[in-house]
């Protein structure tokens, strides 16, 4: 093989390599977008009781209940379509509040309650004055979780 051909071959191999790597990365990214599931998917019964997973949603207004003198608490998460009861015992992040987006890790118990062993909340990347935020709050929260469901009827979980 002539040196020139060798160089061409090398360049060709690098291009092929980069193309394959890009393809694999895209595949990897597609797969890793599934880090939490929506409440609707849980309601559809896709996640059996013995499996650990993460569920993401908004803390439903007026559902947070704490037990006096302990860290036990319950609340509901919603994706504006389905609701899911969550029980949790532990320290909550500072930003946890009603209407806030949270991701909970845990599994469903026999009563259909999601028993969380970890709750995460995160401030979003929107910066605005408080008065503006008030008027926009609901809308913004919808966006930050990427929720696409309208307020339709929730599919029954028994199916």
């Amino acid at each position, binding site marked *: 093989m002539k040196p020139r051909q060798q160089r061409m071959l090398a360049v060709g191999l690098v291009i092929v390599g980069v193309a394959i790597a890009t393809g694999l*990365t895209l595949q*990897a*990214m597609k797969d*890793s*977008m599934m*880090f*939490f599931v929506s409440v609707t998917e849980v309601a559809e019964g896709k996640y059996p009781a013995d499996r650990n997973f*993460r569920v*993401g949603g908004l803390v439903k207004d007026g559902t947070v209940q704490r037990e006096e003198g302990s860290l036990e608490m319950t609340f509901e998460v919603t994706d504006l379509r389905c609701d899911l009861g969550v029980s949790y015992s532990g320290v909550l*992040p*500072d*930003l946890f509040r009603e209407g806030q*987006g949270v*991701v909970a890790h845990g599994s469903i118990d026999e009563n259909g309650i999601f028993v969380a062993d970890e709750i*995460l909340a*995160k*401030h*979003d*990347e*929107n*910066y*605005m*004055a*408080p008065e*503006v*935020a*008030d008027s926009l709050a609901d809308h*913004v929260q919808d*966006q*930050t*979780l*990427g929720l696409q469901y309208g307020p339709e009827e929730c599919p029954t979980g028994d199916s």
Partner: protein
Amino acid sequence: MWKFIHQLASPPHFYRIAAKMIPWFMVPALLLIGYGTYAGLFLAPMDYQQGDAFRIIYVHVPSAYLSMMAYMVMAISAGIGLIWRIKLSHAVAAAAAPIGACFTFLALATGSIWGKPMWGTWWEWGDPRLTSELIMLFLYIGYMALRGAIDDTVKADKASAVLALVGAVNVPIIHFSVEWWSSLHQGPTLIKEGGPAMDPAMLYPLLAMILGFTLLFGAMLLRRVRTEVLFRERRTKWVNELVLSGGK
């Protein structure tokens, strides 16, 4: 145009021109940073979630941005130096590294201070940007360590250029991996796609700070390259004449 670039690449020429260029970077940089600091602290409203704590963004974001920018400047000029064998280009890469490392450190420090009120901890491994910024600092440290370990300037230039380029290929991968890793904690969609939404009264001071920091970086880079050039050319006639004439 080509002739101008060629002239600029000659060390004595660059040394003179850079001296004249520094004020053109420094003065607007100080004005913009002055405005940004005042407007950021007093004119911008409080954030609806984070209150006054968010104001550290005016130092944090420009530093983080510059840590990337400085790496890009370093890698690109190292690459140019390696391929076209331009010595000035290597001097730019050598000069950019410590500045970049400082901005990276500043970004880490401010990020950590920001983390304390927001997350309740100085360091949060779950934050992808904090973690990848840390790896960025490690990359700078590796680059500077390699440079320091090789005595011969020409060899140090070339070896560190290879490292800078390999690092540049890896920077996006590191970011992606850290984001994937910490997304386990946060869920990637919580972070909004399409850039942050921000109140204009908060945004303008931030833009001013970013531009100001960039110009400041330019001024510091020019100064450091001048020193670097002087050191590298210390055996040449023009530097000797310069020294004898008292730097005029």
